[in-house]
């Protein structure tokens, strides 16, 4: 119980620190939203001195208060669940934009990460078990794919599989021409079809790390005394592989997996930009371009919560799957 409380207290402090940084960092950026909106208006039509007053009145004079006042207001709003109003998508509330874009990101990147992890771990287990086999030789290939810059790999695959041989669609989350979003089969099919190529690029570019890590842990675990004991006891190789070796070898990968799950929300910007995918990364990109503090904070908040949440979950889970990490109580 004390273990749990201590962990929770640590996470509360971490959350506060993250929230404060989240508040400060966007405000250190140059420019302010009013000037930005004005300059964008100026390219499309006339802007007069009164326009400034109009935009300020529109956005509220929020951005002009002292930093402490803004900070207080920010914390108060967070507690009451109000993430503020977006400037870039004015007057839509931030929570609506996040609610609208997050499912796409979690669906695509989340599933791709899980698939990449599972396939990588299974391949790594096989490679570590049978060193020198063809699976083992696959590792240099996958690590090479991982070392290729992701955006380049994504663009290349998009060009080859989207334009040269149009097997997959070029962009978007679903076929906007023929299906209507909702719980229906054509829509689900379309989503899967549109998500396949982006997911493929993520899996291809990240599988190498999981595979290599798992393989090396398998190898070092295989030389442990308890494996020799197990073999001496006459256990079947299958049982030794999955219950004795793999179970111990997978532990470091699990913590890595938790961290990467937390970053599912954050790590999607490039993917979403390349594939024009309607996720939260596109929203964040737009928010940064528009000095949209409220939206940036909202997105960062989600990222922070996701990372902290994933870590907490693993910390708790670790106590269960690896008794050694449990504190003396």
């Amino acid at each position, binding site marked *: 119980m004390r273990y749990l409380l201590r962990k929770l207290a640590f996470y509360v402090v971490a959350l506060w620190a993250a929230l404060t940084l989240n508040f400060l960092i966007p405000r250190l950026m140059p420019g302010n939203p009013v*000037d930005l909106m004005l300059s964008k208006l100026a390219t499309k039509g006339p802007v*007069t001195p009164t326009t400034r007053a109009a935009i300020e009145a529109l956005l509220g004079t929020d951005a002009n208060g002292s930093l402490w006042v803004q900070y207080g207001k920010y914390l108060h709003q967070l507690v009451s669940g109000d993430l503020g109003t977006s400037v870039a998508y004015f*007057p839509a509330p931030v929570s609506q934009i996040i609610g609208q874009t997050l499912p796409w990101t979690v669906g695509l990147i989340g599933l791709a990460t899980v698939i990449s992890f599972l396939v990588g771990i299974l391949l790594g287990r096989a490679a570590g078990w049978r060193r020198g086999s063809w699976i083992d030789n696959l590792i240099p290939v996958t690590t090479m794919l991982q070392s290729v810059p992701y955006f380049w790999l994504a663009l290349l695959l998009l060009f080859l599989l989207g*334009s040269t041989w149009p097997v*997959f669609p*070029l962009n978007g989350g679903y076929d906007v021409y023929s299906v209507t979003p909702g719980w229906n089969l054509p829509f689900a099919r379309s989503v899967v079809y549109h998500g396949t190529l982006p997911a493929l690029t993520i899996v291809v570019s990240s599988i190498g790390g999981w595979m290599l890590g798992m393989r090396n842990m398998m190898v070092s675990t295989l030389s442990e005394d308890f494996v020799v004991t197990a073999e001496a006891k006459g256990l079947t190789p299958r049982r030794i592989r999955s219950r004795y070796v793999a179970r111990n070898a997978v532990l470091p990968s699990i913590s890595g997996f938790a961290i990467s799950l937390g970053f599912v929300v954050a790590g999607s910007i490039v993917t979403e930009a390349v594939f024009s995918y309607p996720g939260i990364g596109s929203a964040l990109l737009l928010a940064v371009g528009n000095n949209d503090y409220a939206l940036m904070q909202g997105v960062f908040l989600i990222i922070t919560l996701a990372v902290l949440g994933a870590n907490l979950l693993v910390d708790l889970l670790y106590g269960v799957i690896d008794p050694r990490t449990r504190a003396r109580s």
Partner: protein
Amino acid sequence: MLRNPTNRTRTRRLVSAAAVTATALLLGACSGAANGGQPAAKDASITVAAGDITTKNFNPFSSTALQSTLGVIYEPLYWYNFAKQSDPTPVLATGYSWNAAGTELTIKLRHDVKWNDGQPFTAKDVAFTFNLVAKTPALNPSGLAATASAAADDTAVLTFKSKSLMQEPAVLANQAIVPEHIWKDIKDPTTNLNDNPVGTGPFKLKSFTPQSYVLTKNDQYWEAGKPTVKEVRYIPLQSADAASAALVAGKVDWASAYLPGIDNIMKSSKDLTYVNTPVMTTVIVTCANSGLGCAGPQTDPAVRKAINLAMNREQLAKLAGGGVAGVGSPTLLLPGRDDDWIADSGSAKLPQSASADEANKLLDAAGWTKGSDGVRTKAGKRLSLTIQTVTGWSDYILINDTLKQQLAAIGIELKPSQVSWNEWNAAQTNGKFQLSLDSVGLGASTNPYFTYNSKLATPNTAPVGKSASAGNQSRFSDPAVDAALTTAAGTTDAAVQKAEYGKIQAVIEDQLPYIPVYVNSMLTEFNTSRATGWPTKDNPYVLPAAWKAWDAGIVLKTITPAK
């Protein structure tokens, strides 16, 4: 470069659902190439590449409204064409007149116009719209201060506090008229998203999702026989790459994007065509006025003139303009379209080649002497200037790099810097820059008053450190120019205005607060397989950029389904 989607065998290797949809899609695409995409050619639907459409915002007062709100769903009283010099086109109005004092604008309205919910459009709606704007500062970016009333069902009268002739374009062509019967019940018109827009425009909203929305023909539209296109779909394509790929694949019919090597892309399909309508002049904004806090060698007019003379614009247009840029004018106006407004026809066009000798002479006379490293100095200060532009604006970056070499020949050191859009914009509006590449945006009408007033008038600038977001970022201030602007604003007589603009043109050609480079291209791409009648080079009946407010409505009601 890109092939037609015909290879169907490949999909068999894919598994399950993906394969099913893939095949369906490819079949769709194949038939699309054959008969123009939509089954019934008679009432074709077309697709427009839009920017971001995440939020369903059809509020015509909102600066973040979806791009079809103004012009397609809501209409103004008049419409101005920026692609050529022409009289205003009547839309919801049929005539207007000012009283002698220039304080009262009487507008005659069109009969038989209906809102798309069936209610009749009357002068009450017009009066309501302008009164709403006047009493709500947040809706009033143009500073309109008029009280409006409906004198009769077809006559609206706007009363201004002072002589306001120059408010004409803002009133007539830049204000969407909203229905009183809907908007009188809207509590906060600034934040309302207006998700069921009721307008008079040629199209109305059919369905919306954050990834595509569809407008459908307004059957009660006032102009007989228009529109003929049945449906218009907007899809978000935010990058030029995405737009280019979608065009080639036949997925969009109308896109506005600068595509490098556009002629090659257009060659890939017989249905694709494009039009170039250069209207925005690329200029080097100089922080020119040391009186308002500008610092650096560019505050010396001789330096600005030397830069202007040493510029080889032919080379710049070829390298950075991609061969599609137009020739600019030292008056910051548009040669061709604005010839009538240029007082001295000799200065209608910019010299295209460099005259380094003259530039050298000018700098020598101003006391800038060449140092040992080839860079001029004066009173111990090197003639070194920083020019900023935005990271990723590849054409502007190229201008800076080319200019660096061109100016080195006359002993000016130019240091190009690339910053984020935010930083660039903040530096420019706050005057914390020496030189900055930007373009002269569109005014309220093609009358040069709006460009000159925004870029040169003293009330539109601010000392360095304060935001000059109204447009005069050069910090330029000249009593003669201000007086000329005041005189021009007080008359409707074009000859008097032209004489005043002539004075301004003489000053800016001499002072060069903005050094014009060329007129930037504005490329718009069309697919003619589903609809025809798009604007062309010979018939630029609109400024066809898909993002241009108001013009989109004109295009969409003019095009007709392809046979």
